[in-house]
């Protein structure tokens, strides 16, 4: 028998074994699927968060609200400081009047309220975009605060940094939890395959007597594990996909949409998930063949 024929034979033998014991094999498939689903969800979340943060970072600004009592000397010093710094790629002044117009455009419902006020409550500000690293930006901001003309500084980078950390944590947790759960999956697949070898131990003995090599005797059991692992990852992928598009149909706030639904798993991540399931199955299929249960050792 050629290798390809042998693999086909292993596959059909494995499928036959699995269908015979479908109740317990579907349990192992479900364990694998659940493990990969949990891990996959976290990785998906992490990936989307990372991408969202990257996009938000492009729009991120540092806004300096100027103190009302700032002297013109102070303001001049501030302006020249900003112009001469290499960190800022954009320095745009927004007068209180401009701020009010923008406010009315952005929140038309509140425009009436703002118009009724006697005095414009919005302060003058300077909107900055940065190029430097977070450390450089933070140092510049600290320097700005020390000069008196600044009432308040609103730095988008601060919460972006937190989101970024959350994204890494989600991805890392996904890999970690997924990894641990994959061990559980491999163990449960191993117990299915172990049971199979036990149920068929007399037939295994008979095959040996006929002159079957260990390759032919063990092959179907390894493939039995592999099939369960891959089946588990297919189920997990389907569940992730359903969850992803199910959520997509819901009304979600823009940031949740960005964090969850920007992007489904990449081709690489999908193959990775399949490979992980296959690996768990392969390991699960090989474990019983190396044990001294009397069937193989």
């Amino acid at each position, binding site marked *: *028998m050629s290798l390809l024929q042998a693999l086909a034979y292993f596959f059909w033998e494995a499928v*036959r074994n699995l269908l015979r014991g479908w109740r317990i094999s579907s349990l192992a498939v479900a364990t694998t699927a659940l493990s990969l689903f949990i891990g996959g969800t976290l990785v998906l979340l992490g990936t989307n968060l990372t991408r969202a943060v990257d996009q938000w970072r492009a729009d991120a600004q540092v806004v300096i609200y100027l103190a009302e009592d700032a002297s013109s000397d102070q303001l001049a010093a501030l302006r020249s400081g900003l112009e001469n710094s290499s960190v800022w790629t954009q320095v745009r002044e927004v007068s209180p009047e401009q701020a009010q117009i923008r406010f009315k455009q952005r929140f038309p419902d509140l425009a009436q309220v703002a118009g009724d006020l006697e005095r414009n409550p919005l302060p003058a500000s300077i909107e900055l975009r940065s190029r430097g690293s977070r450390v450089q930006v933070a140092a510049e901001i600290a320097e700005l605060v020390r000069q008196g003309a600044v009432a308040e500084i609103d730095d988008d980078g601060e919460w972006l940094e937190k989101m970024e950390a959350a994204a890494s944590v989600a991805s890392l947790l996904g890999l970690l939890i997924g990894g641990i759960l994959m061990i559980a999956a491999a163990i449960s697949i191993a117990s299915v395959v172990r049971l199979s070898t036990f149920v068929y131990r007399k037939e295994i003995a008979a095959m040996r007597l006929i002159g*079957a090599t260990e390759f032919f005797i063990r092959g179907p059991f390894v493939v039995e594990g592999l099939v369960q692992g891959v089946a588990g990852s297919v189920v997990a992928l389907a569940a992730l996909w359903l969850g992803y598009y199910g959520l997509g149909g819901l009304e979600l706030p823009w940031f949740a949409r960005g964090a969850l639904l920007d992007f489904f798993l990449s081709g690489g991540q999908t193959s990775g998930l399949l490979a992980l399931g296959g690996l768990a199955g392969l390991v699960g299929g090989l474990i019983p063949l190396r044990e001294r249960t009397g069937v193989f050792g």
Partner: protein
Amino acid sequence: MIEFFNVSMVYPGDKVALSEISLRIPRGQFVVLAGKSGAGKSTFLRLIYRAEVPSRGQILVNGRNVASLPAKKVPFLRRTMGIVFQDFSLIERKTVFENVTFLPHILGVDARTRRELAERTLKRVGLLDHIDAYPAELSGGEQQRVAIARAIVNGPDLVLADEPTGNLDPDLSREIMRLFEEIHLEGTTIVLASHDPEAQKEFGQRLLVLDHGRLVADRPLRVMETEAAVQG
């Protein structure tokens, strides 16, 4: 041809199963191995198909030193022989067809040729009607005939049988023994272990008697009528 040179087998726990056996079984002989339960018959056969390695001595099967055969080569040794057991040892989840052609299948024989092979072999054992049945659907005598078909499907030089009629009633036993007789007449060497005195009376050319692991008798059995007819 099988040769034993001073073969002893001691199982763990100092259980002596065979001691100092030397003999020669020429090609084409039908040997009946007799002796009480525990005399060492199964051990004798197990040494030939290398399920055990002798504690002392050498065993040659068709010129191959079985005792020193590496484990990896054991399947290839067994492919040159057919083995039949008291409990039939069929593969329960496979049909009669699949059981009989299991070895040809893993050797890469295509499905059509396997079918022809199975039909030809099952015809010889009178089971063609049951080619697609599962072992559980057959009687004991039928299952043993499947096992015999499986043993001879590859045209082996040597057939080993360990109490093949042990689970069958006398009429069926005679049928099975006649089947071995036919296989022998085609030139196959047969070593058949049996504690059944009936088997020793009517079949075989040579009787070996074991007692507590010793060879206590080795004598020719009368030439059978069937064989005499063929030779005449």
